[in-house]
């Protein structure tokens, strides 16, 4: 799994690629935590290049969403693949997260 972050206006965009499973989800959770700790709480997680995600990845995303919601921020998702979208749907998360077809749309939504 690889993570890259860029700032677009007031929004932090984190691009993730590869597998997000129990081996790699702690790294994703830590990277998201670091953003929140530096008061970057308007976050887009670009999932376009995530080839696989298990419940470990979902846990990292949900814990971050809870943290940013408490300070009126949001974690929005961009371009999940059908495979990742199915996992989100199975967990009932498609109604919890705001999900956008592209990174640009997700950024513009803030």
């Amino acid at each position: 799994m690889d993570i890259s972050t860029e700032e677009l206006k007031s929004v932090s965009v984190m691009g993730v690629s590869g597998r997000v499973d129990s081996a790699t989800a702690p790294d994703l959770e830590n990277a998201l935590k670091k953003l929140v700790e530096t008061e970057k709480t308007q976050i887009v997680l670009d999932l376009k290049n995530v080839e696989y995600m298990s419940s470990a990845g979902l846990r990292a995303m949900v814990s971050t969403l809870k943290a940013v919601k408490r300070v009126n921020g949001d974690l929005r998702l961009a371009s999940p693949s059908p495979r990742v979208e199915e996992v989100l749907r199975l967990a009932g998360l498609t109604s919890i997260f705001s999900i956008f077809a592209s990174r640009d749309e997700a950024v513009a939504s803030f």
Partner: protein
Amino acid sequence: MVRKLTVPGRYDRLEEICAFVAEAATAAGLDDVESNRCQLAVDEACTNVIEHGYDGEDKGPIEVICDARLGELTIVIQDFAARFDPTSIPGPKLGATVEEMAIGGLGLYFMRQVMDAVEFSYENGGNRLTLVKRKTG
């Protein structure tokens, strides 16, 4: 065709386990979506073995046995941990709001959602989980 993979119980072996299951799914004639569901179920099962069964990494091995027949894949996951009682695991709380959500127990929930059969037994000094996926259509 029966294939067997034995790996140490470590999270960094999940990718190898998933690749092994994907090969068997192809041999059974399952499509990509069905193969992905098998990989998800096995990943969640092995994560539970490491996290809850062995209580950490490098505490014991995991055996994965795939029996691929045309249109049906049976996957057996054997560990050597203390007996696991699936009824002791509460289901995830998939609430209407994020604050209400508690997604522990999601692994077992996923397995039951995506597989046609999920059976736990205690054999050979450990837990034996049997997962079955049948081709649809």
